């Protein structure tokens, strides 16, 4: 066990993967000598050389398109999109090719490409630097979409993503980048597709992922003090989705709130509400509710706290789960 930041955990995962497998290459904007604007790729060019970790021209479609070709020719590219909104220029390459070439070729061409996207708010960033864009990718068949909420998962899930055969969109909650936590890099790599119960509880279940997990845990902590016991499930893998873990947790409490930073309309949170309700309907004492970002463009820094799911908003929503059989 070592104490490290999420950036450190991600950096260790890249380094360890590069050591183990010479097919792993890392590229993107500023990932070379600078080590990425968040330093996730720090030291990789120095250690592995220009051919294994390198800067590209400033063009995201180019980055993803080139990664696809490199994967066709046997390599395992891990590319960085500098911020969430700057992945949009690559959207056609992601949606029309990265997600679909495996299917298009009946599995003859698999694309083991990892696209790392720092996402979400909470860092006082200006517009275009704080989007939560996971729904765009989760809605695109053929993409695996994961997001760690702990530093240990950051390490493990990134290792699993790089080791797999399919394209993975890897969302990194950037507001947690510099939080230190214990990380056991020797722990078993968590299989992609498994949610995890982060906290047991008996009254209601909070379902969250990525940057919403610490907020959900804080809410559960606060609820505890107020006499209510909330379970917290960390979804971790948005696609494939772990129905078994999530529905078991919801059935056990009969009440649930989905917490996510992204705007709520047609979102991953909508999906979770829909599938949990489908699968747990007769176990539910109240409709599954959502605490999400508002349906607005990400706000300027001084207003973002109003937009982001907060402990209070979660607890208010839990309060509305018809406790008195209303």
């Amino acid at each position: 066990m070592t104490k490290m930041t999420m950036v450190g955990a991600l950096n260790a995962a890249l380094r360890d993967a590069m050591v183990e497998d010479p097919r792993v290459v890392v590229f993107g904007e500023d990932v070379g000598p600078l080590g990425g604007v968040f330093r996730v790729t720090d030291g990789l060019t120095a250690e592995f050389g220009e051919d294994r970790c390198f800067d590209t021209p400033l063009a995201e479609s180019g980055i993803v398109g080139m990664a696809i070709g490199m994967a066709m020719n046997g390599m395992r590219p891990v590319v960085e999109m500098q911020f969430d909104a700057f992945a949009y220029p690559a959207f056609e390459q992601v949606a029309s090719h990265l997600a679909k070439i495996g299917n298009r070729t009946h599995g003859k061409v698999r694309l083991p490409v990892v696209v790392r996207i720092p996402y979400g708010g909470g860092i006082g960033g200006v517009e275009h630097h704080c989007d939560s864009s996971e729904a765009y990718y989760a809605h695109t068949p053929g993409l695996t979409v994961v997001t760690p909420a702990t530093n240990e998962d950051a390490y493990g899930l990134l290792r699993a993503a790089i080791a797999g055969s399919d394209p993975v969109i890897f969302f990194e909650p950037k507001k947690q980048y510099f939080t230190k936590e214990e990380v056991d890099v020797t722990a078993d790599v968590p299989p992609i597709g498994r949610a995890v119960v982060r906290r047991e509880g008996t009254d209601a279940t909070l379902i969250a992922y990525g940057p919403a997990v610490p907020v959900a845990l804080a809410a559960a902590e606060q609820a505890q003090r107020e006499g209510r016991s909330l379970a917290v499930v960390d979804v971790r893998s948005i696609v494939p989705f772990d129905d078994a873990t999530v529905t078991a947790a919801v059935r056990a409490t009969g009440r649930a709130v989905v917490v996510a930073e992204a705007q709520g309309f047609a979102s991953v949170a909508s999906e979770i509400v829909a599938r949990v309700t489908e699968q747990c309907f007769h176990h539910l004492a109240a409709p599954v509710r959502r605490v999400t970002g508002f349906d607005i463009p990400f706000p300027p820094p001084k207003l973002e706290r109003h937009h982001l799911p907060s402990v209070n908003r979660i607890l208010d929503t839990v309060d509305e789960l018809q406790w008195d059989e209303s």
Partner: protein
Amino acid sequence: MSSSLESVLDTVRLIDPDGSPVPPDRYPSDRYAIPADADLVARYRSMVLGRRINDQASALTRQGRLAVYPSSHGQEACQVAAAAALRPGDWLFPTYRDTVAVMERGVDPVEILTWLKGDRHCAYDPLEHHVAPQTTPLATQLLHAVGVAHAGRLQGQDVVAMALCGDGATSEGDFHEALNFAAVFRAPVVFLVQNNKYAISVPLSRQTAAPSLAHKGVGYGVPAVLVDGNDVAALDAVLREAVAHAAAGGRPVLVEADTYRVQAHTNADDPTRYRTEAEVEEWRPRDPIARLRTYLRARGALDDAQEATITAEAEALAATVRDGVSHGPAPDPDDLFEHVFSAMTPQLRAQRDLLREELVAEGADR
């Protein structure tokens, strides 16, 4: 092989439209020499076969056997030369229009046409043939070619990628990013633009205000060559040189082939809405097959017997294609779910099972 290929923005032509050889002192560069007769006879054969497949496939759309067919009728010189210039391990990145190039690379034409028959998206194995799936989203495949070439360089392979696109596709951002990435990373890619003057209905004048598409090479530091796209001899010389240049120096080349789409964009298109028959007529005498035939016959390199053999081969091939496209098993509905991921997700398994149940019930109903 030198890697100091120069941009040639005067059209390279080695055989005139009337079939007579261009005197070498009129070549715009002394790098090029007319290919040997044997090579040209091979190209001739491939073009005749290609033309036959183009026309057969178009006929199959009229019979409803293919949903749609974007023909390269009239562009067979580009098709054949692009594939023939490649060495065994090299890669080809074709578009929807490049059936004949893919065929020339050794892929079975029935497999190639399967996507237009509606059975599956790409039936051949790209890795076996080093031929990417024929790509529809315009210019996107150019970046994949850069990736394959760059990965080749990093892994010490001696591999060149030949990336095809049309004049319209040069306007897409991905064209720009691909040329630029290739130049910056010194990726051995030959970009061949088949400038057939139209993007569906939109004429070249709406795609660019530059004197040629080859001029775009300048902005990337990529040598560019403009070639008569209906002169297979010139294409052959230019593309082989380009492949050699790319392989030797690990540097991209841009080739613009000046050609023409003499038929409709696809069978679904109505070109009378946007161009005159007179314009098309101007191009007919420049047909690549007739031109090469005149040249070879004049040199005595092609005789009636050879021609008869080739024609017979073409007919046999057409029959095989007609037959192959018209028959074959219906695709398996399980295919819908089988290949989305390398391991089927629980969600997809449930969806597959639902469909299976429905199909059983449907069968029971009948």
